[in-house]
């Protein structure tokens, strides 16, 4: 067969950056199916429409998720990619692999699929692109024999992901890697067997720099924080200044809370921690002089998602501070999480994310159902979300109390 020309794909090889087209051409030498795929992509670019059908349901034994069915809508013209299913493989915590593990993954995929991978998808999984239905179970078995498992897809818990945390970063306020691993193991049923109205994503960042972008991309964002004061090393501050670092311009000017002052004579920083929102800017700018506090934990935020039923949401605070305790198996987090799931599962419509349900039902309903305390940190900005937290039973209780009070008062009088 003569090589077809693919001018539109060729355009994508011209930048100074890596190109998936180059990578696919390399793969095509081993796997002819990749040539067919590139022809199909070229055609999609020409016609400005995709040629994958919407949906498809395939899977492996015992799992309701992890494999996404992909069918070409022009199977006669592109028979090699008529079936081109995607497999999601649960990535290790913090995406730490040995090179041996990656080789193994690629070997399994060359045996059972196109050899094309996407490392990694937005949720965090290693994505294996393109195989046929009759390869799925064998591929899964081989992955499983080598210690890999599938990730989430469909209306289930999506593969939790975490930043590199304490393995490589001094800002980490807790062990993100351990928590991610722990949640993945604890919630295997939720991860593999879809049972909910829609997807639920958990992302874990060790500090407010939020390297997993959890606030925009996860239903539950777990973000490291501290509740005491930023640790300041004044000697190191002086060193920054002596080396020509402009503290006023680089740090003070960017502090969103205006809670830092700088004594130019003494070359000392002081921070009004009461008014600090833990934005991390000063710490990231002067890592040698400033450190996160000593009493560490995390903030839980809920509701982030991309546009579907409602517009895109950022997660918002539902728990300003939680201790993440390895020793007690993160019990407090489990309790909160399971109460959230229960309420959401019971009340949501099909394909309604938890953030959208809160939007529809109100934060008051949510807090009542989950037993979380309403706190000022939940307010986006002043006058933004005025919650009412009184229920008929509160008034009844108040009335009862006051009547009981009258009786007592009355009896005093009669005596």
């Amino acid at each position, binding site marked *: 067969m003569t090589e077809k020309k693919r001018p539109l794909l060729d355009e994508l090889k011209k930048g100074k950056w890596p190109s998936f087209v180059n990578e696919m051409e390399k793969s095509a030498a081993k796997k002819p199916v990749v040539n067919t795929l590139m022809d199909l992509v070229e055609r999609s670019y020409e016609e400005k429409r995709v040629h994958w059908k*919407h*949906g*498809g*349901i*395939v*899977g492996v*034994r*015992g*799992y*309701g*998720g992890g494999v*996404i*069915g992909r*069918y070409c809508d022009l199977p006669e013209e592109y028979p090699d990619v008529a*079936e081109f299913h995607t497999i999601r493989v649960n990535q290790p915590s913090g995406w730490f692999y040995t090179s041996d593990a990656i080789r193994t993954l690629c070997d399994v995929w060359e045996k059972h699929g196109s050899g094309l991978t996407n490392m990694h998808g937005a949720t965090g999984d290693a994505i294996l692109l393109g195989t046929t239905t009759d390869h799925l179970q064998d591929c899964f078995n081989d992955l499983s024999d080598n210690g890999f498992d599938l990730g989430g*897809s*469909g*209306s289930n818990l999506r593969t939790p992901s975490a930043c590199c945390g304490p393995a490589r970063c001094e800002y980490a306020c807790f062990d993100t890697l351990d928590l991610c691993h722990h949640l993945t193991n604890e919630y295997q*049923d939720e991860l593999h*067997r*879809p*049972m*909910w*109205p829609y997807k639920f994503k958990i992302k874990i960042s060790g500090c407010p720099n939020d390297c997993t972008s959890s606030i925009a991309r996860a239903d539950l964002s777990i973000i490291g924080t501290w509740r005491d004061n930023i640790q300041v090393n004044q000697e190191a501050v002086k060193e920054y200044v002596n080396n020509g670092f402009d503290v006023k311009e680089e740090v003070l000017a960017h502090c969103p809370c205006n809670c830092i002052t700088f004594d130019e004579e003494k070359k000392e920083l002081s921070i009004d921690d009461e008014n600090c929102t833990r934005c991390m800017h000063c710490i990231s700018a002067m890592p040698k002089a400033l450190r996160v506090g000593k009493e560490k934990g995390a903030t839980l935020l809920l509701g982030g998602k991309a546009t*579907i039923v409602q517009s895109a949401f950022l997660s918002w605070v539902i728990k300003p501070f939680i201790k993440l305790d390895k020793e007690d198996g993160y019990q407090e987090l489990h309790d909160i999480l399971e109460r959230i799931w229960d309420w959401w*599962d*019971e009340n949501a419509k*099909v*394909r309604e994310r938890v953030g959208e349900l809160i939007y529809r039902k109100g934060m008051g309903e949510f807090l009542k159902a989950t037993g979380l305390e309403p706190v000022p940190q939940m307010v986006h900005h002043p006058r933004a979300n005025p919650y009412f937290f009184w229920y008929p039973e509160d008034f009844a209780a108040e009335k009862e109390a006051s009547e009981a009070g009258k009786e007592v008062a009355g009896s005093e009088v009669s005596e």
Partner: protein
Amino acid sequence: MPFIEVNGKQIETDEDGFIVNLEDWNEDVALALAKTEQVEELTEDHWKVVNYLKDYYKEYGIAPMVRKVVKQTGFSLKEIYELFPTGPAKGACKIAGLPKPTGCV
């Protein structure tokens, strides 16, 4: 178009093996579909789930949410996966003759 053959009759399916026309469904078809979903025979428990799905679909025109299936049939999700190893959406719905669940994954 792909099809399955039941009692000498060809029944049209989509590429995932879901039947295209609900009128084609009968108990023999269900059994033939079951074999494609790693269910060798349909026991009383299987029928309980299948009939629930069918009735729900007839009434509401959509498949019930998994939580409903669990509550109404009394089977835990684990038991449903034991009955239908490929899961409620793929296995049980297919056997009940419901159209393929669609949507974004």
